[in-house]
C-alpha cells in the first residue's frame, strides 16, 4: 500500500474561552521528533479548529487528549491551529504549543 500523510481534524472548545487576540503566530521546525504550529485568528464562536498533518497513524485519541488539555488550560478560543508533525511525542506537542503562545506574549512586551 502506498504511504501517504494523514490528516486529523478536531474542533474543540475551552471550558472558559479567552480570545486568541493576535492575527497569527508561527512556531517550531519540523525536525525529526518535532513539529511546527501555525495559529491564526478565526471567528469560530469561541471554538478552536485544529488540523494535524502527520506521517503517524493510530494516535487520534492521544492527539485529541493533548489538544483538549492545551485548549482548556490556555483557554484559547477563536483560533485555527495547523500542525505539521514529524513523530513528535505528546510531551513535545504540548511544549511546542505552549512555547508558541508564550513567544507571542514576549513579542507584545
Amino acid at each position, binding site marked *: 500500500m502506498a504511504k501517504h500523510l494523514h490528516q486529523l481534524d478536531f474542533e474543540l472548545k475551552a471550558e472558559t474561552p479567552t480570545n486568541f487576540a493576535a492575527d497569527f503566530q508561527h512556531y517550531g*521546525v519540523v525536525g525529526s521528533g518535532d513539529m511546527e504550529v501555525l495559529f491564526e485568528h478565526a471567528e469560530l464562536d469561541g471554538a478552536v479548529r485544529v488540523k494535524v498533518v502527520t*506521517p503517524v497513524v493510530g494516535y487520534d485519541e492521544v492527539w485529541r487528549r493533548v489538544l483538549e488539555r492545551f485548549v482548556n488550560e490556555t483557554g484559547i478560543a477563536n483560533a485555527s491551529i495547523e500542525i*505539521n508533525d514529524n513523530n513528535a511525542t505528546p510531551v513535545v506537542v504540548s511544549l511546542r504549543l505552549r512555547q508558541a503562545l508564550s513567544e507571542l506574549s514576549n513579542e507584545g512586551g
Partner: protein
Amino acid sequence: MSRQWENLQSRSFLESRARKRALGLVDPGSFTELAGPRDRLTSPHLPVLGEAVEFDDGIVTGVGLISKRPIFLASQEGFFIGGAVGEVHGAKLANIIRLARESFDRMLAADPHLPEDKRPAVVISFDTGGVRLHEANAGLLAHAEVMDQFQDCKGKVPIIALIGGRVGCFGGMGFVAAAADAIIMSQFGRLGLTGPEVIEEELGKEEFDASDRALVYRTTGGRHKYIMGDCNALVDDSIAAFRTALKEILSKTYNEIAAMGCIGSLSKVETQLKWVNLCAKLSPKDAKDVWRYAGNEAPEDLVDMPLDLYLKSVKRLTDRCKENQDG
C-alpha cells in the same frame, strides 16, 4: 520587537533556527518574510512518500535592511530534512535572488547614479546537505536555477554566503556557496562537496573516518577553510558576529566584493589550478600538513586555540601563495 532583536544578537548562530538568524542579521524590525509559513508552500512530493512537510519547505526568504542597503535574504533550516533542497525550497531560493537582481535593475533605471550603499545585496545563510533525494530531479534543477541567478547577478548584485549551521554546506550547495562573491564562516561551519559520511561509504574508513569529529572539522571546518582561503572571514559563533562581518563586507563597493570571490575570472581559475597542483605535489596525509606548509609551525595548536588568538597567529595558504607569486 527591538528588545527581541537585541536578545537575538548574542545568540549562537549554530543553535539558532533559520527564521531567528534571518531576523537578527538585518536591522531591527526591518525583515519582511516573503512566501512565509502562512502561504503554506509545502512540498508536493513529500506527502506521496509519507514524509512530513513544513509550511516554509525548510527555507526562510525575505527582504530586510542593513544600513541603507536592501538585503534579499535566504536562510536554510538544517533541522528540516537536513536543509535539503527540494522543488519549493529551491524555487524560493532562486526567486529571492531573482527579485534582488530585478530590484537592482528597476532602482538603477530610476536613478543611474544610485549610491552603492543603497543598492540591493543577496545574503544566503546555508545550512544544507544539497539536493533533497526525495525530489531529486526538481532539487537538481533548482541548483541549476540558483546558479543561473548567480550568473545574472554578476556585475550588479553582490552575493554573500554565511555558513555556521549544524549541517554545514555540502553537496551541490557547496558549489553554489563557492560561487558566491564572499563567504563568512564560524569555526563550527563546515563547507565541502562530498560530505564525510559519503566519503567514508565510498572509499572506506581508512580513507576517511566520518565518526572522527576532529578529523571532520579540520578537513571541512571553518578554521581549515580560513587557512585554505575558501572563506573570506572567520567569525565567532553569534548572530552579532556574522552581522558585523556582513556589514563590513557590504560597506565595500561591488567591485571590491566581487574581487573577494574564489572564482569568476580566468586569472582566479588559474590561481585555483596552481593550488590544486601544489596540493598534488605536497600529497598531504592530513589537513595539518597543509597548515604547516602555509607557515604554521605548530599546526596542532591551531585546533583548540581561542578564536581571537587563532586569528592573530594563523598563517593562511593564500598569503603563502601570494609570497610565492611575488618572489
